[in-house]
Each structure stands twice: as structure tokens, then as C-alpha cells.
């Protein structure tokens, strides 16, 4: 965990520098008339300072427990997390083309099989019901605009 803290602090410093760099390209203004880049520059500098403090603090930690703590990144854990995130991203990207009904049906099939999947017939039935019911409730009753896609509904 200690090592990860130090790595995170480096990321913080880099992000802070990028923010400052971007802020410097905006108008900073003067003390009596601060411009658009004024506060971003200040916040960027603050982020750098705090990240340095965080990194040093992690390095100097005398808390043996903290130093011994294992890495929080366990592969078995984030495999599921990544697959769900990818499924959601694909959904967002394909939503316009496929339309709400088909895209949602596919998303539900994937998600319902992430944790201890039930049998296929059950999964397909549940996915169909969810896609259909949300389409009626949100799309028809609550008038959320859903993309029509290839089905044209």
C-alpha cells in the first residue's frame, strides 16, 4: 500500500503541473481583477504541494501496519469490475445505432451473467422483461427520449 501511495502522489503532482500549465495559457488577470486562469493556477499549485506532502508522508510513514498492508489491487477482484465497465462503455457507444431495446437487452444479458449466473433461459427472459418494462415506464410514461436505432421504435 505504501508503494501505491507513493505512485498516486506522483500522478497527483503530474496532474497538478498539467493544470497549472493549462491555466497559464488562459488569462491570469491581476490581483485586483483576477482572470479565468487565476484560480485554476492556484488550485493546480495547491494540488502539487498537497501531492508532494502526501508522497513524502507515505514515504516517512512510521506506521508499521500501513507499510505492511498489501496492495489493494487484487486481480480476481478487478476482472469483474473491468468487464462491467467495458460492457457499460460498449453500451454507451452502441446505443445510438442499436436503439434502446436491443442495446439494453444485450447489456442485461451480460450483466446478469457476471455474478453466479442463472441458466440461459432465465437470463434471456429476465433481460427481455427488464428492457421491455423500462422502455414502457421511462420511454413512454416518463417521456425519456431513447434512441430508436435499427428497430425504429
Amino acid at each position: 500500500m505504501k508503494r501505491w501511495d507513493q505512485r498516486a502522489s506522483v500522478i497527483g503532482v503530474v496532474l497538478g503541473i498539467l493544470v497549472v500549465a493549462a491555466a497559464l495559457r488562459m488569462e491570469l488577470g491581476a490581483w485586483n481583477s483576477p482572470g479565468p486562469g487565476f484560480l485554476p493556477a492556484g488550485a493546480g499549485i495547491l494540488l502539487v504541494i498537497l501531492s508532494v506532502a502526501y508522497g513524502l508522508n507515505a514515504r516517512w510513514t512510521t506506521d508499521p501496519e500501513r507499510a505492511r498492508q498489501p496492495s489493494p489491487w487484487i486481480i480476481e477482484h478487478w476482472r469483474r469490475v473491468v468487464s462491467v465497465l467495458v460492457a457499460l462503455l460498449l453500451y454507451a457507444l452502441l446505443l445510438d445505432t442499436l436503439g434502446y431495446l436491443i442495446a439494453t437487452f444485450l447489456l442485461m444479458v451480460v450483466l446478469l451473467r457476471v455474478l453466479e449466473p442463472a441458466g440461459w433461459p432465465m437470463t434471456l427472459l429476465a433481460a427481455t422483461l427488464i428492457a421491455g418494462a423500462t422502455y414502457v415506464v421511462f420511454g413512454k410514461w416518463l417521456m425519456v427520449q431513447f434512441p430508436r436505432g435499427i428497430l425504429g421504435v
Partner: protein
Amino acid sequence: MDLAGNVLAGFQVSLQPINLLYAFFGAGIGTLVGVLPGIGPAGTIALLLPLSLGMPPVSAIIFLAGVYYGSMYGGSTTSILVNIPGEAASVVTCLDGYQMARQGRAGPALGMAAMGSFIGATLSIVGLMLIAPLLAGVAREFGAPEYFGLVCLGVMMLVYLSRGSVLKSLISAVAGLILSFIGQDLFTGDDRFTFGVVELKDGLGLVPLFMGLFGITEVLANLEAPIRRQVYDARLKNLFPTAKDWLDSRGAILRGTGIGFFLGILPGGSAMIASFAAYAAEKMFSRHPERFGTGVIEGVAAPETANNAAAQGAFIPLFALGIPPNVAMALLLGAFVLHGIRPGPLMMEQHPQIFWGAVTSMYIGNAMLLVFNLPLIGLWVRILKVPYKMLFPLILLFSVIGALSVRYSPFDVVVMILFGAIGYVLRKMEFEATPLVLAFILGPMLEQALRQSLIISHGSFTIFFTRPIAAVCLGLTLAIVIANLVPLLRAGRKVIAAQETGD
């Protein structure tokens, strides 16, 4: 108008059938998400925010507020029956609540939780009605420097009271501030951090950001180790606590209300902190502190009263100053802004019906919640048995629909997913998302106040120290920073000294 007249006018708004209906749905949905672990009030309010855009402003606030205080009721059910907090604010309720359930006293525990909640909430609403207008009266004189001080203090208090490292929470807050810069400049209209993306011109969407950080992140974290629920399946009978239970809880309820109300008003003092503080206080006052944790009714009454009192008290800074003390209130602020209303002293003057309508609806909502949580308790217990593998795809889908419904833009869905991933990484690294979100919401207010102050003072920072309210707020802010960072520096110096002496 006097208080009675205002209350009467408020009830005229909140008793309109449509507003009764919204209070009913708000409280019901609140109870539902309170009962369900893995989805919290903040995520839910974010989810429902787009839906509320179609309602009149008063109804929207009545509805969303109902979700918030409703969740405080629901959380205790899960704590008592499953030993998993349905809500962060019900964590301590597990300690004695679950023990009571195991001893066959689930009924009185649930009953006391609901009735304690009701008492704490309604007393707190009286406080809200008395204090908010007074505070708004004072705040009418506030200028930019005062708001700058208040916002700084609010964010700093939240940072200080967050779990974990103060340094990390500070970094979180600064990150939120930086995210709030995205979009057009408030004064000049220049693009900032938009990278030429048209969708970013209006800034990052509130709804996708919140739903990502609270909704999606929560689901992702739960996927690691799916929640195993063992609902304590004793037949629920006799929900009414005995006379002895009441006698034992009397002090806990009163003290819980006081502690909760005070911590609710305080920026950063959340319902969760209130519940912990009330439990600790009860243990201190008790003549038999050793019995806490074995199933004493005070251990249920104190935190459940306190979290509801805090939930209502939290509306005071939001309504009177326009400064949200916690994330759920920050979302309500977002709802106000989306409706084109800025809460604060001006709103109390110009739209009194919103304040009084919302406050009186809280009475009605709490009465409904008493019904939801006592006679209808069986319904929620049944919902608790829905397995998580069925639940989480629905939560994700509702989040997607929520993000889509703001302005129908798949871009918002991508932003939401991105922040879900960011939130997950932050959580793994033990960074709190709450300071980030509060700073994000308050960022524009902070920037406006700072820039206006500097313009007024011709660039001199002394303006923040010559105006008493601003000076006190900023002084306290600095004190918190120094009190937290000095020990870190000292620890660092020791290590360096040790290394230099070759230790």
C-alpha cells in the same frame, strides 16, 4: 408574516394532492434505497434529479428531500435484520439492533428505530423552522468575502470530518475544485479545460458525475465481494416497544435529537457522524455501558434518532445560506440550480412558498414514513431478499437512463462511466469522494466570491481579515489545516533526523 401564518401557507402548498403524492413517492423510494445496501441516498437523488426537472420547483424539492430523509428510516431495517447497514448512517445501529433481533426482539428494535426516527425528525423540523429564517436574516448582509469564508470553512470541515487521512481528503477537495473549472468562465465566458469538446462548454454534468462517483462506484465495489444477506427470518410480531423500553430510551431519544440536530447543521457533520456521536454519548451516560453491544434498546434509539435529526437539520444551511453541509444537500442545491432558483436569504424572501412548502411537507413525509416502516415493514423485508446479482444490473441500468434523460446525450453516459471508474480507483486508494463532490458543487460559488472580493478590495487580501465573519471563518479554516498538518511535518522531521544520524 408571522411563524403561524407561514406554516399555514406552507401546508397549503404541501397538502396539495400532487405534492402529497410527491412526498409519498419520495419517502417510499427513500425507504427502499435505505433498506437496500449498496445503493445510497446520494446516488439515488442524483438518479432522480433529471426526473424532477419536469416537476414544479416546490414539488421537486419535496420529492428529493423525501428520498433523503426516507432513506434514514429504511437503513435501520437492514441493520437490525441483516447486520449489514442499509445506509452509512445506520452502521452503529447494527451493534445493538442485530443483537436484539437474535434475542427475538427484532419487533421492538424496528419499532423503536421508526418511532425514535419520527421523534428526532419532527423535533428537528421545528428547529429548522425557527432557525433557518433567523440565519437567512443574518445572511442577508453577507457579501462576497463572507461567502468565500463560509465555503472554505464548509469544505474544510467536511475534509476534517471525513474518514481516513486529512491530506487525502484535501487532495480530493482540490481535485473537485479543479473539475468545477471545466466549462465557460463565469465572468468572461472563455472556455476552460474544454479541450474543444462541445459537450464540455457547460461544464461537467452534475448528474453523470454524481451517479458515477456514488452509484457506479458503489456497484463496482460490491462486485468484488457480493453482499451475502442472511435476513433474520423470525416472524415479525409486536412492533411496539414495551413501557420499559420507552423508559430506557427516553434519554437516548432526547440527547440523540440534540446531538443530531447540531451535527446536522454543522458543515461536514453528516447523519453518519451524528449516529456515531449519539451512540458514544449514550454509552457515556449509561449506568451500564458494558451492556452496549449486547442488544440494549438505547443502542438502537440513540443513533436512529440522531441520524434523522441530523438529516432534517442539514436543510438549515442549504435553505438559509445556499451552502450544502453534505453531499445529499449538495445534490438538492443542484436541483434548485437546475430549476433556476438559488437557495439562500433571497430565496426565503422571494419564494417563501418553496421553503415553507418543503418544510411542512417534511412533517407529512415523516408521518408517512412511520406508516411505511411499521405496518408495511414486511414489504421491505421481502425486497431485501432480492439477490444482488439481480439488483445490480438494474441499478446500473437506472443510472444509464438517469444520465441519458438530462439532455439525451450518450456523452453524459460516458462521463458517468468514467467517473464510476475514477471513483473505484479513489476508493481503492482510500480517497474519499465526498470532499471532491462538495468542492465541485461549491467551486463556482467559491470562485465567484473570491474574484468579486478581490475586485472590491482592489487586489488586497486584507478584505478577508477586516470583515469579522469572513475573518472568523477563514481563521477556523486555517486552524484546522494547521492542526492537521503540523503533526505530519513533525513526524517527517523525526524520520529525517533519524536518517541523518544513521539510525
